[in-house]
């Protein structure tokens, strides 16, 4: 049963990825901007241009190009980056960990902050504190992540420079690790000096990404917590002698989390999309920053690789949320 659900899920994912591939492939070839023209010095001859186009296969029709590319992808060959002349897969995989670490850190911050806001707001509901929290929440929500990035740069990079606001790691500390998951591997290897340096670099961009998401989580979770607090089983728990705090944490929270969880899944994919601008803003060497460079340079194979990877990431996040939902909601487990 579970196997069949999983298989159908994999099938949907493949169809989605195929669709994404088609769209990206077509769009970046239809919009103006020729990578070959950008590579050659001014004054190159027609013959030079034609030769280079033939080298990258750009002289064929778009459908033809697509199936050649797709044939490579199926075998794990995503093509060669036009600007760096390195395999796309290797480039993308070398940057992916940086972006994943940033996104996950942002998610953790958002859940912690949002959860705290929701629990405090529920505990102090119908008081002025709740009203103040709502106002702060609304503000955090209506300012987009890149503006939060600028605010944070201004506050903690310029006015009171306690955080490093550029790059991923200090140049003198760049490690020779087996993976690019520096944050994770530095803990495993007990390199806490490096870990601290990484966190110091990541905290500001992660916070910029996390603030709007935290506000959404805080708002929705508080709302569903407050609704849950009126339900009969919560009232029954009160008659058993439990305090307000215990009632919220033991009885209400687990049920109130469910609607929020679905939302976190959707919002987390937006957050990953948001890394593109935030990484640029903080000169963070991740996938997003690479994507912007790739677009500017019309590095078609690289753009395709990055977008496909992002699409894969989104579907994986959604799958993870669905699984978590089934774990937390006993009513779904046997369905």
């Amino acid at each position, binding site marked *: 049963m579970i196997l069949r659900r999983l298989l159908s899920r994999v099938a949907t994912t493949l169809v989605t990825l195929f669709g994404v591939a088609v769209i990206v492939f077509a769009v970046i070839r239809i919009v103006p901007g020729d990578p070959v023209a950008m590579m050659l010095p001014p004054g190159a001859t027609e013959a030079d241009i034609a030769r280079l186009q033939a080298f990258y296969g750009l002289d064929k029709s778009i459908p033809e190009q697509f199936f050649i590319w797709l044939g490579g992808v199926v075998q794990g060959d995503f093509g060669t980056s036009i600007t760096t002349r390195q395999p796309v897969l290797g480039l993308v995989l070398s940057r992916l960990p940086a972006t994943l670490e940033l996104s996950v850190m942002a998610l953790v911050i958002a859940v912690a902050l949002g959860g705290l806001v929701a629990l405090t707001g529920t505990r102090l509901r119908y008081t002025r504190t709740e009203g103040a929290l709502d106002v702060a929440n609304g503000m955090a929500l209506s300012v987009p992540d890149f503006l939060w990035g600028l605010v944070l740069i201004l506050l903690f990079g310029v006015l009171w420079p306690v955080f490093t606001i550029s790059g991923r790691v200090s140049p003198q500390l760049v490690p020779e690790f087996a993976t690019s998951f520096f944050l994770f591997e530095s803990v495993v290897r007990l390199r806490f000096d490096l870990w601290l340096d990484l966190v110091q670099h990541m905290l500001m961009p992660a916070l910029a990404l996390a603030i709007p998401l935290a506000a959404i989580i805080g708002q929705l979770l508080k709302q569903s917590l407050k609704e849950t607090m009126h339900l*009969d*089983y919560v009232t*029954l728990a009160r*008659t*058993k*002698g*439990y305090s307000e705090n215990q009632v919220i944490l033991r009885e209400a929270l687990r*049920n109130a989390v469910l609607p929020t969880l679905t939302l976190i899944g959707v919002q987390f994919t937006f957050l990953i999309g948001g890394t593109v601008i935030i990484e640029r803003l903080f000169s963070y060497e991740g996938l997003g920053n690479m994507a912007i460079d790739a677009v500017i340079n019309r590095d078609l194979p690289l753009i395709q690789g990055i977008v496909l990877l992002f699409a894969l990431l989104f579907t994986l996040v959604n799958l993870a949320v669905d699984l978590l939902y089934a774990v937390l909601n006993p009513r779904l487990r046997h369905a």
Partner: protein
Amino acid sequence: MSFLKIRDLSVILRGTNHRLLRGVSLDVGATEVMGLVGESGAGKSMIGKAVLGILPRSAKIVSGSIELEGVDLLTLPPRQRRHMIGQKAALIPQDPLTALNPARRIGPQISDRLVDILGWVRARARARAEEILHDVHIPQPERVLRSYPHELSGGMRQRVLIASAFAAEPRLIVADEPTTALDVTVQKQILKLIFEMQARHGTALLFVTHDLGVVSKICQRLTVLYGGLVMEEAEVGAFFDTPTHPYSRALLAATPRHTDPTADLTPVPEAVIAEARRAVAEADQRWHA
């Protein structure tokens, strides 16, 4: 001596002068079954909620006392009040479908009070939960302990809730229309079970209902409410033979009898309602003065 002693309890709608309970006084003996009857909105559930400390936010106690074993709950600090209620009293709720937490297994929902409030060790609480499920005639209790609420029928869930109420051997149980949400076929069994458990454990029982037929069968005394005011308080035998208050008489005449189900029912006459309203108005006048 009475176990529950309510004196002159008044509850208002928060932010207004409107009283929902108008100086209610009530006694329930240590092993007594007291029926609390009245039309909807008469305040019968409100009394039970006030005793258990679960009044809605919109209601506020403004005067009176609620004593459990001679200790006034309303003067206790919140923490002690909570613990006292958790140890000495329990609720059998109205709707078994919503009164169990859908995300938690049955076992912990029965044993959590024993562990957290009464300080039992986990193993003993678990054994007690299994024993009490057996007492309410649930087959395969060890399987039910591991189940989630959605895996049980409505009648089973109400049995679980009854078990949960009696698990900690409380001295007082408030049953708030415990059969209203159930199928007619299950209602009888559940009623029988509640009184079987009450008799076995010797618990005081405050039985909130609008069904005088049920009261006549199981309660020793009853209190009739109208508009948050006590109309009459009587022994059940005497009440059904010769109700003294005109409102009680009218209420009795409006109750169907299963001995004669085709007999005409008399709605409560206008004159009687007018008189009851007058009593309510007089009580309010005295209170505001």
